[in-house]
């Protein structure tokens, strides 16, 4: 990575969906740190640095043996704490032999890892995404690898004006782009609120509501630094009380978007749609999932093209419009986190533990 880091390390990042981590080895690179994830026999997830202490071969090419990984090259074993428990052809184990073990928390259907200083990894700092576990909400999601800076994904979500143009056939319409909005921020959050009152519903939402007539539509964007966005969105029949807090006549979703930085120019984009209507119907889950895939593909196409343009135009800066207020607050919060850990002398966690030097034969002196 060259220049200023684009992501803080002292934060929880989603490394995988819960169902992706099992009794097999899963390789993911989170914040430029190659990791291997797996589940122990007791069901707990573990994440180790994906490079053998000995010759750096990815441990993800090895084998899961009980709760340990056996390296696929020379058979060294590492336990979930990263301690080496077996070395070939010797009766003892080098006390320095270890790979880094990352703090892991499984919450809200995601496996979160902490790439920074493990002593600071407080599970209470995992973003609250309670709809993911709440029986009153149903839904599912997926992950797509996007060849772009995760902040471009955040920009995209912090200003949903783009729905009018990128997603014209499904969730966008002219009314949305012209509606006023409010951008605000807290110490770790940024929020953009937008209401569209008494307008025709866009195609997707009209179908979800299943009622004719104009609607009141809400779109509240919650950013939780550094990489989580939870969208509180929905429609209700116009005048049924939604702007006053009564959403009982409408349909709503919490749409979770988490672009986890893999490198400074690639990310794992986790997303999920949780709805509070027809929660018992698996078919709706599937329909929303498929519809969302199409919408996400439209975003991915634009964002990857934007990254390529950035790469072609080094030194060029973005122009910011008033609609970018939300993304500017969000980026400001990220920059603040980065500055805190890269300030001179800050306890910046080295990306990898120091390792031994390459073997060099002794110099034979004449």
């Amino acid at each position, binding site marked *: 990575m060259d220049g200023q880091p684009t992501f803080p390390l002292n934060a929880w990042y989603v490394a995988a969906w819960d169902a992706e981590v099992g009794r097999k080895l899963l390789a993911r690179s989170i914040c430029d740190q190659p990791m291997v994830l797996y589940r122990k026999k007791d069901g707990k997830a573990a994440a180790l640095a994906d490079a053998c202490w000995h010759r750096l071969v990815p441990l993800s090419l090895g084998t899961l043996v009980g709760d340990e990984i056996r390296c696929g090259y020379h058979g060294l074993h590492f*336990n979930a*704490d*990263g*301690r*080496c*428990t077996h070395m070939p052809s*010797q*009766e*003892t*184990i*080098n*006390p*320095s032999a*270890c790979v880094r*073990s990352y*703090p892991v928390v499984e919450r809200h259907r995601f496996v979160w890892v902490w790439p920074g200083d*493990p*002593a*600071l*990894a407080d599970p209470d700092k995992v973003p609250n995404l309670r709809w993911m576990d709440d029986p009153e909400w149903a839904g599912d999601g997926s992950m797509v690898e996007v060849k772009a800076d995760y902040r471009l994904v955040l920009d995209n979500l912090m200003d949903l004006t783009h729905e009018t143009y990128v997603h014209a056939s499904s969730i966008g319409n002219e009314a949305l782009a012209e509606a006023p909005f409010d951008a605000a921020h807290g110490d770790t959050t940024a929020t953009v609120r937008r209401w569209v009152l008494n307008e025709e519903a866009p195609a997707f939402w009209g179908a979800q509501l299943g009622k004719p007539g104009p609607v009141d539509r809400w779109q509240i964007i919650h950013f939780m630094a550094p990489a989580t966005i939870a969208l509180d969105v929905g429609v209700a029949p116009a005048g049924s009380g939604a702007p006053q807090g009564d959403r009982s006549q409408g349909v709503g979703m919490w749409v979770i978007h988490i672009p986890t930085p893999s490198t400074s120019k690639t990310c794992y984009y986790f997303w999920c749609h949780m709805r509070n209507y027809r929660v018992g119907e698996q078919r709706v889950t599937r329909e929303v999932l498929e519809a969302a895939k199409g919408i996400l593909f439209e975003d991915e196409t634009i964002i990857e093209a934007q990254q390529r343009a950035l790469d072609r135009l080094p030194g060029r800066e973005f122009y910011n419009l008033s609609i970018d207020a939300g993304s500017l607050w969000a980026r400001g919060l990220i920059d603040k986190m980065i500055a805190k850990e890269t300030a*001179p*002398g*800050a*306890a*910046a*966690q*080295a990306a990898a*533990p*120091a*390792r*031994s*030097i*390459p*073997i060099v*034969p*002794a*110099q*034979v*002196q*004449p």
Partner: protein
Amino acid sequence: MSPAAAWQHAVVTAVRGLTPTVREISLQFPAPVHAAPGAHINVEVVVEGLPDTRSYSVVRSAADGRAVIAVKRVENSRGGSRYMWTLEPGARLKATAPVSQFEPSYGAPAYLLVAGGIGVTPMPSLARALRQTGARPRLLYAVRNPEERAYAAELAELAGDDLRVYVASEGQGIDIPAEIDALPQAGQLYMCGPMGLMDAVRSHWARAGRDAALLRYENFGSGGRHAPQSFTVHVPRLGVQVQVAQDRSMLDALNDAGVATLFNCRRGECGLCAVDVVGLTGDIDHRDVFFSDEQHKSNTKICACVSRVVNGDITIDPAWRGDPDLSRPEVLEGGVTA
């Protein structure tokens, strides 16, 4: 050498006596350094005019690039501490940025930290980091006499009732078996100290059938069961005799004499410097952690980087065998046992 461990020029900014035999040295690095809990630095010392490397745990580091180490002066040693004690404020020293090989694993149900003498130096940072995560490590600190309690006040402030100090001259000692037995099965033990203490912990840990991966220790190969003596190494295959001075390692002496060796860690961990022992008078003071107790007792190999011979001489066979003769079939040396 990895970039993280590249040599830098550090400047001594302060020197402070902690005990009659322990001196605290503050070093200023050219750029800010961050020491992970339990990290050490390597420094270049000069012994009898020759450069050599020693490792010292970082007691604490500061935001502006300062790192603090503590050095115990040992008269009958290899000479590194004598050199370190000549340093005064303003002196320049080659040193590496902190190297992290002793960082704790967090989240264990209990922690036991065991320090003997100058082995106390990694404990303040380990205890501080563990307590920051909400753990309450129990800290056992054994010293020879009351004057030698370096950092006891700092540790007491940090650990309060969780600290126990044992003064040998007052008849106190750590009850190692009882302490280990009282530790929950998934608890972790971190130790640093003299060979005898570490051996006692290792052997009870193994006897109790505990998970070896939960016993963590650091070994700089600096101490043994005997004070260092000079000795002679006979290498009949090469027709040379090598004198190992009291303050020189066998590995360095062999290299100086042109006996080719392999080595990597220089602290008795990796086993690459091991050579075959074919003759011995006196005894080997094994200071490595590469060989098992059984292997040490057999005295058939020696880790030349840290281990030494006392009260006698040693005859070794190095790895040099000449170029093989491909015109006849290979013969298994030592014969075939039925």
